[in-house]
């Protein structure tokens, strides 16, 4: 966005491993390797299920040969709890899967390059409760290996999946606290008004 829109203005600070990511000299390609992204609407590439996963490892040079790549595809799909459902149709288009499966495909695609952080922007907002539960189960599993930052409008989801919660309002972070604290007894009155549905 910095490059496309002239008037784009960024304030505040985001650091990964102590390094400010919003500086001119930061290599965005390397940054993208560290930070995987999953979006609100599942956005698989218009390619086969296999190639959706293989794309990242190929361009980042993570696999030396076809065997390596096969292994990465299989383990990524397994980690994303999708392998059993798609192992016999890896050459079919990713876009042919159901919404929940597509979202898990996107998560598999993200973890195929082994990022440090996965950023999930409303990953379940287009999914039914069962597909949502599968993604949340996956988040529980993946958080053992990756740092996951999830943006959600569903307070119950924030309460279910996170250990720490930040409450953002109009571009400001109003409270950052343990999730339990936020939902049981927040420090900031605005947080309380918001989560209890009193925000006027």
């Amino acid at each position, binding site marked *: 966005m910095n490059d496309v829109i002239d008037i784009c203005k960024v304030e505040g600070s985001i650091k990964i491993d102590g390094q400010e990511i919003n500086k001119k000299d930061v290599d965005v390609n390397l940054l993208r390797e560290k930070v995987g992204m999953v979006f609100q609407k599942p956005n698989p590439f218009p390619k086969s299920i296999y190639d959706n996963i293989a794309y990242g490892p190929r361009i980042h040079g993570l696999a030396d040969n076809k065997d390596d790549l096969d292994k990465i595809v299989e383990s990524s799909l397994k980690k994303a709890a999708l392998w059993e459902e798609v192992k016999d149709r890896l050459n079919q288009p990713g876009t042919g899967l159901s919404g929940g499966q597509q979202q898990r495909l996107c998560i598999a695609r993200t973890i195929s390059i082994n990022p440090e952080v996965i950023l999930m922007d409303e990953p379940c907002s287009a999914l039914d409760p069962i597909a949502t539960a599968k993604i949340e189960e996956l988040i529980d599993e993946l958080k053992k290996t990756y740092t996951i930052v999830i943006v959600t409008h569903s*307070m*119950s989801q924030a309460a279910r999946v996170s250990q720490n919660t930040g409450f953002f309002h109009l571009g400001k972070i109003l409270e950052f606290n343990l999730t339990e604290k936020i*939902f*049981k*007894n*927040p420090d900031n009155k605005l947080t*309380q*008004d918001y*989560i*209890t*549905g*009193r*925000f*006027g």
Partner: protein
Amino acid sequence: MSEHIVSSYEEQLKKLHSTVLKMGALCESQFANSIIALVKKDEELVDKIIGKDDRIDELEKKIDEQVVNLITLRQPMAIDLRETVSAMRIASELERIGDLAKNIAKRVKNIKIELNNEDFSLIRSASELVQNNLKKTLDSYSKNDEKLALSVWNSDKEVDVVINKLLQDLLNHMKKDKKNIESLTHLLFIAKNIERIGDHSTNICEYVHYFIKGEDIKGDRPKA
């Protein structure tokens, strides 16, 4: 505190609050009446008290249902959740108070001695003290006043002092007046019931404090 955006949710919470207050008021009057029935030996009033106990149980069930509905349908958060959960616990304390009042009333017909005199003034002052604490407890809930709840909680030691005196007093009567030992034994139980009602009031104070402040009252309750 400002109101909820969804007014039906606001109403549901207010309704729960008012059901708890209704149950509280009923328990308050059951307890007050049980003491009146005791002092005046009013058996008609005893029957009335026993008959009304079902209504207390009904209200407790109603509160449980309202709480479960709120949790299922509204998923209350923060202070709303604390209030919802506390309502259920307060209702169960109130139900116990109702039972104790009924138990006092049931003992009335077994008491063959005159209580409306100086010899038994302690039983009246102890119950006045506890009635007053129960009233303040319900006020603290009604007005969301955690300071009042805390002050009642702290003042329970005065109840303990009076009850201990009363128990000693009753034992002295027993030693002197052996033919009335049955009546006096019932009075011992009644004294214990009054003390327990005081204890349930302080438990309610703890829930009121928790739901308003989000934390338990610190330290142990002062005891005499």
